[in-house]
């Protein structure tokens, strides 16, 4: 309770007003009495000012109402012994929608939660937290069964991935202390190490699912940078621009049909069969000059999750390689002139690349008339610069001048990574190259990502290329020394195909990522969501960002000067994998045991005060009407 609540203090000023009104009404009231004769002697004396307030029951009731209102405005709470508080985390991630002809895991979890609410003790309080996106559904612990049931009934799964541990931390913050019990309703398997106070109800089951797990735009950089230098692009698809990666998350073969709906052109379809757990990158040949959204759909016989079967990619958008004729901006930054010289010579061979050197000692030298935009691809051998670069980058590991040359044979490619679709032409190469300075990748300064290309050298597996992708930003660590054998065809192939993967960076937004709608003038902005809901936002002007992208589909923003549409896709291999899951729950090491002082519960009294005030008003009305009847 805030005793110094400004509203409560202001409301207390109404009490003198009530007293004044009563005194005024009293002084104006005429009372017929039998006779003034007995008071003749008193009447001769001058009347003195009244010092006593003459009131009746109505005054005291009105005063009680005013005091109750002031008390209610102070928001008092009753501190008592704590009732049991349960933190309920319900998994609303996309995988909870998975089902094959039966109720989904979310439906069963919801029913279980409703049953728990119906069976709970009257004073037991609950805090509900949804895990995807992490949202506390209750602002404070609630014991009202009706409110809890209403919240659960309105809940629906989203199209984003979830994190139970994060939801647990948010829930603890809402409770304000360590809850007495934690109930987790999820489709994830139970965690290996869970506290006894944590009850995990898992509704998940292994269900077959085929999902689109990635898509790249693969424009040819330059004709010579291909496998056989014959002018034939990789995979034998001369007009392939889109690489769609699908994966079979089941223990059985899955025949699938992948179709691409192209605007103003005939649909493109592919049919293939995926082995259990197989990931396959399918090149989709698109006619040249295509602009607009391309809708890719995957159809299989047995599929548990529908949201990951469709992808919409917008072609010919602004960007570095949105069209075949656009140039790719590249920034080269190296302390060693020989590295800049070799890389520059390679880059000069590709007319679509507009590169320039960025050096601290020498000013940038544009070679193709292009400035260095923020989303340029950085090629550098400086680990710090690569780590701080905001967009896609390639880091070339530094080698000492005296490194021995090794013969590398049998290049090995990690087939589970999307970059493999670019590296496939290098399956068997025998060459002598300078190996990485250390066989252990972890010891290499600036190296990050997982190895996607190895070579065998003297019976040991040597990583050559590391790749990582985080929030749409790709990074390649090139462990080979380009200055050692600058004319090596395999080396240039690896370089350019890695560059293609970097240039083919994702061209779509996935759920959970913010949407940027460009410049919008100040005013009210209307947002139409894919689920039919409409939101209004006050926008101060400038770039408009919308972050609540928890549904796949089209988001339409209407604000001056125009209406803009953006599409959000669902690409989440972890959520799509309904076969093998791992729990995202982890015990919070910072959680402290509840002390007795913290165990005291705070029960808001505002509702009770308002009810009491209403009762007093009714009694007052009854007394007033009764008095009026008697007077008539």
């Amino acid at each position, binding site marked *: 309770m805030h005793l110094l609540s400004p509203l409560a203090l202001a409301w207390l000023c109404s009490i003198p007003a009530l007293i004044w009104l009563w005194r005024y009404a*009293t002084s104006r009231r005429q009372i017929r009495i*039998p006779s003034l004769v007995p008071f003749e002697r008193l009447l001769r004396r001058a009347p003195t000012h009244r010092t006593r307030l003459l009131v009746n029951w109505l005054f005291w009731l009105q005063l009680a109402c005013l005091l109750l209102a002031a008390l209610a405005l102070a928001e008092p709470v009753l501190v008592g012994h704590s009732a049991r508080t349960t933190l309920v985390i319900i998994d609303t991630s996309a995988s909870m929608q998975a089902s094959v002809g039966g109720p989904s895991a979310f439906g069963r979890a919801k029913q279980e939660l409703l049953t728990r609410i119906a069976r709970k003790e009257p004073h037991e309080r609950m805090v509900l937290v949804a895990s995807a996106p992490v949202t506390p559904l209750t602002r404070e612990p609630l014991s009202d069964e009706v409110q809890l049931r209403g919240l659960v009934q309105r809940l629906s799964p989203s199209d984003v991935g979830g994190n139970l541990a994060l939801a647990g931390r948010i829930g603890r913050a809402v409770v304000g202390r360590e809850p007495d019990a934690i109930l987790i309703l999820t489709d994830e398997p139970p965690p290996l190490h869970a506290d006894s106070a944590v009850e995990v109800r898992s509704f998940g089951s292994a269900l077959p699912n085929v999902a689109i797990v990635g898509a790249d735009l693969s424009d040819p950089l330059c004709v010579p940078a291909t496998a056989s230098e014959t002018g034939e692009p990789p995979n034998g698809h001369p007009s392939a621009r889109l690489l769609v990666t699908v994966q079979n998350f089941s223990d059985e073969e899955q025949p699938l049909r992948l179709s691409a709906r192209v605007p103003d052109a005939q649909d493109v379809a592919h049919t293939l069969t995926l082995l259990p757990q197989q990931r396959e990158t399918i090149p989709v040949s698109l006619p040249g000059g295509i602009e607009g959204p391309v809708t890719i759909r995957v159809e299989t016989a047995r599929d548990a999750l529908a949201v990951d079967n469709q992808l919409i990619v917008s072609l010919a958008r602004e960007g570095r390689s949105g069209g075949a004729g656009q140039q790719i901006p590249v920034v080269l930054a190296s302390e060693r002139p020989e590295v800049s010289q070799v890389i520059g010579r390679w880059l000069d061979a590709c007319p679509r690349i507009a590169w320039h050197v960025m050096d601290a000692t020498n000013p940038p030298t544009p070679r193709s008339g292009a400035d260095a935009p923020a989303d340029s691809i950085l090629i550098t051998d400086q680990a710090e610069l690569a780590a701080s670069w905001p967009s896609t980058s390639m880091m070339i590991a530094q080698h000492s001048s005296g490194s021995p040359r090794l013969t590398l044979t049998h290049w090995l490619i990690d087939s589970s990574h999307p970059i493999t679709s670019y590296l496939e032409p290098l399956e068997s190469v025998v060459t002598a190259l300078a190996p990485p300075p250390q066989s252990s990748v972890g010891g290499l300064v600036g190296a990050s990502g997982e190895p996607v290309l190895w070579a065998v050298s003297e019976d040991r597996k040597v990583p050559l290329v590391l790749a990582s992708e985080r929030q749409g930003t790709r990074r390649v660590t090139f462990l080979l020394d380009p200055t050692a054998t600058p004319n090596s065809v395999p080396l240039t192939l690896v370089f350019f195909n890695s560059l293609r993967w970097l240039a083919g960076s994702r061209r779509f937004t996935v759920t959970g990522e913010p949407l940027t709608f460009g410049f919008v003038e100040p005013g009210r902005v209307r947002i139409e969501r894919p689920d039919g809901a409409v939101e209004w936002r006050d926008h101060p002007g400038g770039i408009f960002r919308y972050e609540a992208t928890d549904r796949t589909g089209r988001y339409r923003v209407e604000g001056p000067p125009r209406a803009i549409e953006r599409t959000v896709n669902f690409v989440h291999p972890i959520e799509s994998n309904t076969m093998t899951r791992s729990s995202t729950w982890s015990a919070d090491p910072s959680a402290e045991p509840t002390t007795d002082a913290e165990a005291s519960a705070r029960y808001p009294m505002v509702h009770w005060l308002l009810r009491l005030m209403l009762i007093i008003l009714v009694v007052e009305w009854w007394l007033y009407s009764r008095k009026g009847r008697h007077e008539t």
Partner: protein
Amino acid sequence: MPAITPLDPAFLSRLETLRLAARRIQWGARLGGRFPINRRGSSVEFADYAQYAPGDDIRSIDWNLYARLDRLFVKLYKEEIELSVEVVIDATASMGLPTREKFARATHLGLCLAYIGLAGRHQVRLSWMRPGGLSATSWCTRRVAFDRLERFTQDVVPGGQVTMGEWARRAVAALRMHGGQVMWLSDCLTPPAEFFRAMHLLMIKRLEIRVIQVLSPEELQPAHLFRGGVLVDSETGRTHELNYHPDELARAVGEHNEQLDRFCKRNGILFVQHRLDEPLETFLLKTLTARGVLE
């Protein structure tokens, strides 16, 4: 305003044990009536023995007593008179306040006294002190006339203002009041001078006066009645903003009543106060008997 409720017959039957008490035979009381008084007279009701003296009627000598005591005694008998009982009920506006029960109680009290009078075979008349022409019933001597008196009270509503002395002057002349008893039922909230004047006029007519002051408890403790504001006199319409201490108000009422009581005692008038919170039956059977109004 509701009508005066009729008195319960069972209650009336209990009143038949009571009789009006007359302290002295005033001029105007007619001898030969049926009301025995403690005066040696010629009725058949035995009163006492007395020593025979020459000149006494020898027919009144008790010869049996002479045979036993060998002394002469004469038997004495009570005198019987017939009283004229005038019951005056105050019907001014003040009798309707602070509650309507005040006038109803005064009317019931007057009817009870009238019934006791009729039961004692006196001639009884009801009259109301109110503005306008004098209103009074005719003299009733038989108990059957009580219904007529009761019906007459149904139409009387308190209201208006009348000066007590002026009304007494007109009533004495017009109603030919002389001798007998006057039962004055009023709240006595009138200027003392007017009260004294009225009493004097009645005393001049040799009437035996009993004043019964009917008051509500709130009138005796005005602080509970006057909850602030402008006070309006129900009779004169005079207004006044009363801003005094509750004790002062109660003291003023007490002094007013004491002034009237002192005057009555000095002039041999019975002054009895009746509070509305006292039951009517208790007041009749105990209070009035103890104060000598009834016996």
